[in-house]
């Protein structure tokens, strides 16, 4: 989402500048030469057309709804563009070390898939939580889960992470369904 915000920001900035330029142009023109027609934006025509609408007309409500939707989308975009880095402890003053949630998940995934009895695994990781979902054809959840939990806990504990994330392991096994 950060990259989307980076791409969208110049466009939003130019849009704000464009709207401002049109407002300033028309206001300045009308101030200087009151009787003349608008320069670029036919606002007098728009005003006359808008006179025919009331607040409860459906096109007005649709525009209101669209504005709410646009506002919510931009809020989500701005909110989700924060950094999701996983901090490591600093080896020295003036040095900050971080890793990405994706690479932490990759590391855990490699380790989990190397365990006996694991057929496949998907991992999501963040600074607070590491969630492992493994499937196994040979072992039941009760058999495999403690092993995987301790493996992942050991692995995460061996990393110099600033705070140790909680480990959650779920095992999906056909043997449990019988």
């Amino acid at each position, binding site marked *: 989402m950060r990259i989307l915000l980076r791409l969208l920001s110049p466009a939003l900035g130019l849009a704000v500048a464009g709207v401002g330029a049109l407002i300033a142009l028309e206001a300045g023109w009308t101030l200087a030469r009151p009787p003349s027609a608008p320069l670029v934006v036919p606002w007098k025509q728009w005003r006359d057309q808008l006179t025919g609408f009331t607040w409860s007309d459906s096109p007005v409500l649709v525009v209101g709804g669209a504005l709410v939707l646009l506002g919510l989308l931009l809020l989500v975009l701005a909110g989700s563009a924060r950094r999701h*880095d996983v901090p490591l402890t600093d080896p020295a003053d003036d040095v900050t070390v971080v890793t990405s949630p994706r690479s932490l998940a990759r590391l855990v995934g490699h380790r989990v898939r190397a365990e006996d009895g694991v057929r496949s695994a998907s991992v999501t990781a963040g600074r607070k939580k590491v969630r492992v979902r493994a499937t196994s054809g040979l072992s039941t959840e009760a058999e495999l889960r403690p092993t995987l939990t301790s493996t992942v806990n050991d692995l995460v504990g061996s990393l110099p992470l600033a705070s140790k994330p909680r480990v959650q392991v779920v095992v999906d096994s056909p043997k449990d369904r019988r």
Partner: protein
Amino acid sequence: MSSRSSAAVARSAGTDRTLTTLLALVALAGGVVVLLVGAGVFGSGRAGRSLVDPIAIDLLRANRSLALVLALVAGLLLVLLGLWWALRSLRPESKPDLVLDGSRGSRLTVSSGAIAEAVHADAETVPGVERARVRLVGDPDNPALRITLWLRQGSDVRDIWNGLDTQVLSRARDALGVERLPAAVRIELDAAEGSRVS
């Protein structure tokens, strides 16, 4: 952790996020007001009135010059804000050169590219590091290193983490003769296949 090193982790998106949030709140507030008025929350009489309210038009006509001047000023402010925002987000991140001796009559600077290249070469010699990317960021008075390291599968993160300051950063500081050179290091774990011992 210093604020300078943590600020160097990535280019800040703070201004973009703040301005986008502001724009979002304006759109949201406008939309909500339109929906509330249209739904008759402020009275069914209000909901049935024209969008171009005669009372508002009369008020604007009575204060015509004032309204136009206010619109002109608001428009100009929007132009300035919008252009500043667009230019700011389009501008590439600065790569400051390091001024080692800024005393009068003599000036010794090391280009950001040269420092980045030297640290890059050092970083790739650390065992377990597959690839490194280094650049100098920040403003010329407060430069900082931004280092990204891609580690081989199976490499010992703790060893590399220990070696960062002693092997790479301290060498850079010694070579440049500076006491402080804040650094932000991003480690990509298990990024490349490890070398297999046969």
